């Protein structure tokens, strides 16, 4: 992973409710033989841990298959089985931020109003900079009052360059200028902050598509990464957001923000299943260092073991 520290605090804080649901899982299983009522209880506990209906059902179903086939029988074997099964859901998923062969790597950051885009951009910039890579920020939210200034303050605090347009300017034009500048200055990474928009606003979604096209035209292969910033406290609606944003700009990964605001850390699992998109980074606070890479291995371990 390298770039970001592994998801430690999600295990400490965000998993409170998930852990609660798993408490006593081992004790409950100890000394028992697998049967239908045990399987039902396991599924219930997984659901309560917020891993999502799909992951819970499928994990329990494959457990049932193995049990029926006589490959597994003791309650003690269940937890290792579930761990492997949940981990397997992330196999082959690339969780690293994309990195282009040729400079610059372009990362486009999108999402609904107030989801945490600008802060997330600052967090990514801080981590990249700490890694010794040069970063250029593009302040392409020319719509919301004070948005450009907000990113500018971050650029000053973090000591990274910024390309901005006037409030009300065409965001696609700002992005074009930023792409030019990134090439000219040989920046390693160009990070584009965009205006918040509801996925129901067709015109604004088309504007986003246009922004994407403008970067692609100036820098072949760009954007290399399109991060959708999702608020971890959002409800079912997040799934719609992922669908519509993906249709407009081919989202490649999720930045799950405000995970410190919910006890439902398990949703990271559910999101992966429901959206087919990997959660690459998670936000756990308002400071630039409050960002972590998502590590499914550690996550699954923590889910079961923290609870004991």
């Amino acid at each position, binding site marked *: 992973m390298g770039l970001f520290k592994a998801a430690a605090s999600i295990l400490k804080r965000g998993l409170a409710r998930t852990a609660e649901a798993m408490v006593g899982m081992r004790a409950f299983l100890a000394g028992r033989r697998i049967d239908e009522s045990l399987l039902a209880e396991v599924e219930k506990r997984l659901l309560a841990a917020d891993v999502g209906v799909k992951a819970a059902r499928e994990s329990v179903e494959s457990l049932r298959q193995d049990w029926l086939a006589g490959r597994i029988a003791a309650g003690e074997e269940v937890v290792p089985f579930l761990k492997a099964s949940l981990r397997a859901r992330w196999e082959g998923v690339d969780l690293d931020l994309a990195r282009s062969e040729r400079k610059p790597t372009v990362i486009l950051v999108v999402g609904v109003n107030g989801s945490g885009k600008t802060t997330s951009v600052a967090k990514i910039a801080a981590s990249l900079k700490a890694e010794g890579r040069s970063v250029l920020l593009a302040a392409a939210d020319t719509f919301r009052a004070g948005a450009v200034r907000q990113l500018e303050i971050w650029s000053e605090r973090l000591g990274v360059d910024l390309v901005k347009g006037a409030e009300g300017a065409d965001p696609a034009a700002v992005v074009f200028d930023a792409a030019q500048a990134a090439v000219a200055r040989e920046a390693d990474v160009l990070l584009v902050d965009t205006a918040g928009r509801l996925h129901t606003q067709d015109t604004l979604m088309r504007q986003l598509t246009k922004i994407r096209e403008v970067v692609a035209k100036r820098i072949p292969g760009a954007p290399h990464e399109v991060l959708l910033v999702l608020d971890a406290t959002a409800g079912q609606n997040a799934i719609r957001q992922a669908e519509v944003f993906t249709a407009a700009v081919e989202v490649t990964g999720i930045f799950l923000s405000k995970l*410190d*605001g919910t006890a439902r850390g398990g949703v990271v699992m559910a999101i992966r299943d429901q959206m087919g998109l990997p959660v690459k980074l998670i936000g756990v606070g308002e400071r630039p260092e409050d960002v972590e890479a998502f590590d499914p291995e550690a996550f699954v371990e923590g889910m079961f073991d923290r609870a004991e």
Partner: protein
Amino acid sequence: MFDGLTRSFQKTFRNLSGRGRISESNIREAMEEVRTALLEADVHHDLVDRFCNEVVEDAIGKEVTRSLKPGEEMIGIVHERLVAMMGEAPGPIAMVEPGPTVILMCGLQGSGKTTTCGKLAARFKADGHSVMLVAADLQRPAAVEQLRIVSEQVASSAPGKGRVAFHGEPERCAEYGQAVGVAVEVAKRGLAEARKGNFEFLIVDTAGRLHVNDDLMKELRAVDRAVEAHQILLVVDAMTGQDALLSAKAFHEAMQVDGLVLTKFDSDTRGGAALSVREVTGAPVRFLGVGEKFTALEEFHPQRIAGRILGMGDVVSLVEKARQEVSDEEAAELMEKMSKGRLGLDDFLRQMKVLRRMGPIKSLLGMLPGVGQMLKDLPLEDKQLDRLQGIVHSMTPAERRDPAMLERSRIARVAAGSASDRAEVSRLVKQFDLMRKMGSQLAGAGATGRMAAMRGLGAGGLPTRGSTHTSSPKARFKQRKKR
């Protein structure tokens, strides 16, 4: 908004009305569908169970099974229960003497507090009240700047006569966690200034915070004590899940809020938050944020929302929106023209502009009963309205007055002038002609009846109960004048 709920409610009622007499088990079955829809809409499952049970009980109590129109009776029962779940409308914000009436905004990060401050200020300004906004968010970079810009925009371009001023101390901002407590002093100075300037309202914008952050919650309480807020409004994102509603509850417990503002209501959230936030938090919803413009703030009326959910539309809100945009004289003039069949395309153009100011076309359609619900799914976009406007702009004044004179060659010219095709132009002309004829027919006594029917419907009455509205159109007109 509410699309999923509306669809499943309508399906349920259709099934029930298609049957003639129904049995208790028919009702229970039908409610299963509703149950699923409510769960999918993010309504908490305890609430869903209670709601469904209550509806079934009511239905049995009212002997719906013996009714000849069970489907319609059921709509009535569900409507009442939905309203009960959302609670009473809290009424307007009371002003205190001497002013300023202090409103403290709070909520989670990114919920929309600052934008809502601007909308509230615009509302007060429109009512002729003076208002000062104070930026007590010293945490998020440029939050002070954002509120300053918002205040200036409201001052310069929102309609109305009230004074709008801003107090902010951007130099006191600091990095995260370093400015905790500074907000208290800033808010105090804002209040002093508002007193000095004789402002009637003071709106205090605060930083977003988690209810579990003790330091920041302490700060919020200190700000409250410092300004002795008369109204604490908690701003909640309508797309919020059940888990976050619990944090709204915690906020309420910590701050004793007076009301909630549900923002981003123009999204396609299935409305679970709107339905359950009252029950979960115990605080009433006061306003809905329905867009990014300053005018995009609606008062929350459970009756009307229930109507919208049930696909009955919300004509009252639509009329209110229209009233903000059209003066009585204009309306009267239009009526006159309509009744005489003299409506021209210029009038059409003007109406179209009004319509555009009222909000996105899709959200307006959702407020129309029946038809609106059907049209809502069409890919109808504001852009198409632009095209129509373009076509009318390419006509001569004479043609606009009397579109009937548009024969082939004129149509070709207009099509070329507006970069559209002939079929489009002639469709517009034909439809307009039709509308004009319909207009003159409707404008008689029939129209009054229609309007009356629509009013009753949006105001929480039900289509099936139209007959129980006993007041005459005349009496209602008088009432309307008094408002």
